[in-house]
């Protein structure tokens, strides 16, 4: 190591020591302190670089180790998620059938949406489905979690059982539902006919016409309440028992304890549940085609949903640009709902 370099290192070290002493001594001015700290960090970096004598400083090596941890996931994530997302935005402004020349459309794809009857039906149905499913699932899962958080016999069995619908494959559970609610042969309609004397021609057609959205909502609540129940259960276990003891001492009844302790304490859990539920509801596709779809899974205007239309336009009609325009509408709604919920959460937290 050259003498000049040693001297250089020494002066830098001296400056560093002085700065550290100053910061340790306490600096009144916050801005000044911040300035000193950043100067220290910079000096430390140059020093370690100079000392080790190599161009690769210790920080750089540390960064490399960190990147080696991230790389296996990040490369896959970047290639198969980030890049397609960028393409999705571009595609919405193009006209392409996947093989011939690409044409720039500007906003024409979006204008076309306005006069598309099938799109409007898909949009309306998806919104109705979400408005029904989100609050019902939330209430059902919260109620179930509160019950299963108490000391009841066979709690573990009940918990496991309520998770079965979530774990079970959609193809399997929808085929059972279709049998149970079969319009002419199913046990539900048999009960309506034999026990409640509903005439044959008035027996409900659960999976077509006006009732179809209701059936989709009820099925979704049944299938997903167990999942959100677990999230609520985790939230409930985070509430300190002392709060309830204090409540009891003040003579609070069960409802008051729920209103003044449980519900406020669960606010962030509820927020998470509602955001996740909303995102998942707007993605609905397979439930609709399996419960309401015809032989080859086709949906009519009474049961169509946004994702079904994205799929049809892309993989059946090969109208890729238009399909992406529909996808952008889906994205915009999800984004809007999430932002509104975040804003609301922030407002109530203050």
């Amino acid at each position, binding site marked *: 190591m050259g003498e000049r370099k040693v001297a250089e290192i020494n002066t830098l070290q001296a400056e560093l020591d002085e700065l550290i002493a100053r910061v340790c001594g306490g600096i009144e001015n916050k801005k000044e302190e911040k300035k000193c700290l950043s100067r220290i960090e910079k000096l430390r970096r140059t020093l370690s670089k100079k000392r080790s004598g190599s161009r690769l400083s210790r920080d750089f090596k540390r960064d490399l*180790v*960190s*990147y080696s*941890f*991230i790389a*296996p*996931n*990040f490369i*896959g*994530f*970047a*290639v*198969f*998620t*980030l890049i*397609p*997302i960028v*393409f*999705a935005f571009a595609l919405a402004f193009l006209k392409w059938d*996947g093989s011939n020349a690409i044409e720039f459309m500007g906003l024409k794809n979006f204008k076309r949406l306005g006069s598309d009857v099938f799109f409007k039906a898909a949009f309306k149905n998806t919104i109705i489905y979400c408005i029904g499913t989100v609050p019902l699932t939330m209430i059902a899962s919260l109620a179930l979690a509160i*019950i299963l958080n108490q000391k009841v016999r066979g709690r573990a069995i*009940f918990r496991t*059982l309520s*998770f*079965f619908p979530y*774990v*079970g*494959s*959609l*193809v*399997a*559970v929808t*085929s*059972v*539902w279709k*049998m*149970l609610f079969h319009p002419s042969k199913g*046990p539900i309609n048999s009960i309506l006919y034999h026990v409640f004397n509903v005439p044959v021609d008035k027996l409900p057609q659960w999976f077509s016409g006006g009732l179809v959205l209701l059936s989709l909502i009820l099925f979704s609540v049944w299938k997903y309440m167990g999942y959100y129940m*677990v*999230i609520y259960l985790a939230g409930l276990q*985070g509430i300190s028992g002392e709060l309830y003891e204090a409540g009891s001492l003040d003579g609070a009844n069960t409802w008051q304890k729920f209103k003044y302790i449980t519900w406020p304490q669960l606010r962030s*859990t*509820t*927020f*998470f549940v509602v*955001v996740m539920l909303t995102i998942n509801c707007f*993605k609905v596709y*397979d439930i609709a085609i*399996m419960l309401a779809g015809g*032989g*080859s899974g086709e949906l009519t205007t009474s049961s169509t949903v946004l*994702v079904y239309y*994205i*799929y049809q336009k*892309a*993989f059946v009609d090969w109208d*890729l640009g238009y399909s992406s325009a529909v*996808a952008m509408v*889906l994205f915009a709604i*999800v984004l809007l709902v999430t932002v509104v919920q975040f804003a609301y959460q922030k407002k109530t937290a203050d």
Partner: protein
Amino acid sequence: MAKTKSKSKHDLIKKVVLYVILIIIAALMAIPFIWMLSASIKSDREVFQMDPFVLIPKNPKWSNYVQIWTKIPMLTFVKNTVFLTIIVTLLQLFTSSFAAYAFAKLQFKFRNGLFLAYIATIAMPWQVYMVPQFLMMRSFGLNDKLLAIICLQAFSAFGVFMMKQFYEGIPNELSEAARIDGMTEYQIYSHIMLPLSKPALSTLTIFTFVNTWNDYLGPLIYLKSTSKKTIQLGLKMFISQYSSDYGLIMAGSVLSLIPVIIVFMCLQKYFVEGVASTGLKG
């Protein structure tokens, strides 16, 4: 005295109401599955017989469970699904926990920016970009290849997010002490962090296993030839072809449920703990 008596009576009523509600919910949850099991050993005529309804028919039709393997190439579907699910779950567990360790415990350049890229995509439904993703995979020659589903499922932002939340709950002193003892970051990850993260890993395993096993839309877009199809696709294909072979459909459904139920039962004792500690509750 009278007061305590009325209080215990009050408690008793509360208990009864509680159990009645529980039993109703449990019945709602269980009946479809009981029906499925019962119908899977019935003939098509017996399936809808309500008067009288029998749970187990006099002559159980076990042949449904044999026939389902010959009516459709069930063995191929099972093989494909098992292969996909195991590979995806292993990749997901490894890459997510590996990346999450760096995000939670290491300092490096662009850390926040990179993590933001993950967070931003969690709220982005896959359905928004499934079309360009398909076009890209097709140009890679992955159309109708099982590898496409692996690429699609194995690198989720969700897994990284979940594992990071969990690791942040582990005190820094542990890794600091190990660093002073001269352990490399890789050793700290494998010897200290991994053994501690059983609840989070179990939770992620359940989610990934269930999602991959039950996925329908992904395989529907990518897997076209019968020899590549998964159980879900195969079962759906069977249902639309033989829509009135109820006993067979139910037997196939029961078969498709068994692996996920087993995985769930094995890992569930860590599950609530996992959800609680990974910040999934918000």
